[in-house]
């Protein structure tokens, strides 16, 4: 579905290699989490694979189409939700979605059905015919998601998708991600929310300073699931025993009130790294 091979990106007038030799492959029907600290190279990788940024080495294939050699076909199979949810604010929500649907050649019958479904799903019926500039942060995020899904892409790419969304909408998106994958499509998203990634993703990749450090399964591997936070903190060089124990305890108390707080913090090993 998505194949990134030895991706390299250096920004103009910069000595730093933003992405250095990243390779991974996404399978049909999986939700893939992309983790890393701020500035690790997540957004740069996403911008390269969506065609926003040119890159200096490697290759990216979407559904078998090379993003550089065959960009139109590659982009046709992709839907992208940016982290800043910038849209054409002078258009109404419906005009914007229609514009995107025209671009992806979605038939009238399909767009009618899908738009009705998504507007209902994201509770945007009261605002769909208003100018987007009147939308709140979360509403803009929702219209971006609707526009990204209007052509039912095989690969759905989301950059920090849950930021600014209300709990209801977050739950709806999670449910829809699963539904989308159940149809054999793939979801690729970046996030800082480790708990969400743990609950949602089949696989994750952790990047640090432009390098892909680790890529592993979560589904069917309870050990990986349990150790996700520790691996993330160690890989990103932010592991500190006391901090980590606090994080796990807090997570257990807040997110899993049904579980007792484990003082051993999943066997976390001490020492600062």
């Amino acid at each position, binding site marked *: 579905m998505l194949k990134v091979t030895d991706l390299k990106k250096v920004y*103009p007038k910069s000595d730093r290699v933003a992405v250095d030799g990243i390779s991974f492959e996404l399978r049909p029907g999986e939700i893939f989490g992309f983790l890393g600290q701020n500035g690790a190279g997540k957004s740069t990788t996403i911008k390269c694979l969506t065609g926003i*940024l040119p890159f200096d080495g490697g290759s990216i294939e979407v559904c078998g189409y090379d993003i550089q050699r065959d960009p*139109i076909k590659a982009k046709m199979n992709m839907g992208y939700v*940016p982290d800043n949810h910038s849209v054409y604010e002078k258009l109404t929500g419906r005009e914007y979605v229609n*514009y995107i649907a025209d671009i*992806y050649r979605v038939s009238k019958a399909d767009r009618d059905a899908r738009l009705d479904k998504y507007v209902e799903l994201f509770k945007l019926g009261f605002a769909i015919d*208003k100018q987007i500039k009147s939308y709140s942060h979360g509403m803009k995020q929702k219209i971006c998601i609707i526009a990204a899904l209007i052509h039912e892409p095989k690969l759905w790419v989301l950059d920090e998708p849950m930021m600014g969304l209300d709990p209801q909408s977050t739950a709806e998106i999670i449910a829809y991600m699963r539904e989308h994958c159940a149809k054999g499509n793939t979801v690729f998203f970046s996030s800082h929310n480790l708990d969400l990634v743990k609950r949602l993703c089949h696989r994750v990749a952790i990047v640090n300073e432009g390098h892909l450090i680790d890529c592993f399964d979560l589904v069917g591997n309870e050990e990986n699931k349990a150790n996700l936070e520790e691996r993330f903190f160690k890989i990103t060089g932010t592991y500190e025993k006391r901090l980590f124990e606090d994080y796990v305890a807090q997570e257990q108390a807040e997110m899993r009130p049904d579980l007792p707080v484990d003082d051993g913090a999943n066997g976390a090993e001490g020492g600062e790294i």
Partner: protein
Amino acid sequence: MNDKISWLSVRSLLRLEMRARFGSKVEVPVGKRVVKGLGIVFSLVIYALLVTGIYFLAALFIERSDMPFEFLVLAMTFVIVLTTLVAIGNVVKNLYMSGDNELLLRFPVSGKEILISKSIYCFIHNVVINLLLFVPVCVIYGVVTSAPVGYYFVAIAVILLAIPLPYAIANLLAIPVMMVMNLVKNQFLLVLIFLIAAICGVFILYMTALGGVLDYMRDESAGMFSESVMEMYRNITGAAYPFRWYALLLGGWFVGHSALEAGLSFLFIFLITAALGVGAYFVTTRTYYKIILTGIETEKASFKKNIPNITRSVFGTLLHREFFLILRSFNYSFQYLAMAFAAPVMVYYCNDLAATMGRNTLGAAIVPGLTLMVIVIFSSIIVSFAATSISREDNAFYHTKIIPVSYTTQVLAKLLLYGAVGTASVVLSTVVVAAAFSSGDGLEMLNSLDIGCIFIISEMLTLALTCLAIAADVKSPTFNVSGDGEMVSANKNMVLALVVGMAIAALFGVFTMVFSFLPLTIGDATIIPIGERNNIYAILGVLSALILAGSVAALFVGLEKRYQRIAP
């Protein structure tokens, strides 16, 4: 609103304003410093040229007419009207439309402190503009009339007395302007129609007045300094209050006016300035906070448009989006659509005036060249807007990269829209000019060959300039919008497109005019015999076609790679 004013907050806000405008202490790269330096030098040269022009005009007028006082009244009128117009623009832009009011109100500062800091900046701006205009005019007048030393001391006092007036008027007028602007938000078509009517109205008024003066001078067959024209100057300057009071105070006393007149003038000026100043203070302090809050509250005010889902072709939807993003913006509607549709009116009046003057002095053969030049000048102004076609995408630029449409198609859609608007403007201009100058009333100064060739050449140049403008923006877009997500100021590409357009218009126009009177020979071969405009059009037609071909190539050759390199 808190009545206590913290002058420390005012100082901090003012410093913030100054740094935002004139740059921080961060080191600027050499290249940018050189560009900035060249810009300053260019501005100084233009200013020096203007001052020199004023000097020669003053010397000519005063020497020929022997009416120094009347000249001073006219000069004061010009300076005070100009400084007032600049001040209104400055106050509206900085006090109400700067886009940072919401941000500043989040800080622990009151609306009054924001008003004071911004007002100080506006007042400093007003002082600088006043000095730049008043000082040269006063000095030139003193030099030309060999005024006594005392005149220069009086001039300093008059300048200081004159500075608050434009600022007070600007503050009073800015409030109704902003109220109207808040009221007509989202009335895009209405605003566009109003803008077109306003531009045409002001232009027609101006050109009619100018034409009237020229007709008067011609009818009197007397020129600028005949007795009847002198009488007209005397009548106008005799009634030009309050500007006459400034002239009386400044220079009336050494050209025969009494001290009483000067004293009364001072009193009137003082009373008017004080009344307007006090009025502006009370009105502004009482309404500013409310107006900016209304502006912030209605910033997100939007319209609702219930439409069914409509299916369009890819190209059609790109065109539709581009057009509505322009139409639904006051700035863009004014800069582009209003100018495009008002252009034929401007072309007609400019051409009418220039042709009348040119025909009287040089002969009717000048008219085709003038027409070509005027049409291309206005086309350049319109199509220079295309030089922001990529920059205006700003935060939404990523859309152009992720959609499955080639960059060539996307740019072609923009080109088609701008080309169509430019073409409509050229067609209307040509039709208007043809109707006016090829009929019996127009003394048949343009024949059908002239009209056809002028249209073809203008159209090719319009399309070429559109291509060049878009190509310049693809090469180096400036993603820097403000306020409502719009580019308020022109970017460097727009200025470049405008300069290139003007240069081409001048070259083509002058070429046509000159070789309508003179032959063009190379060696023994006569390329253009006298009066053979067919040859002129053939040469310019070929040149235009070459420029168009070059521009299309400059835009589209390697476009996919160049566009892909743009990183927002």
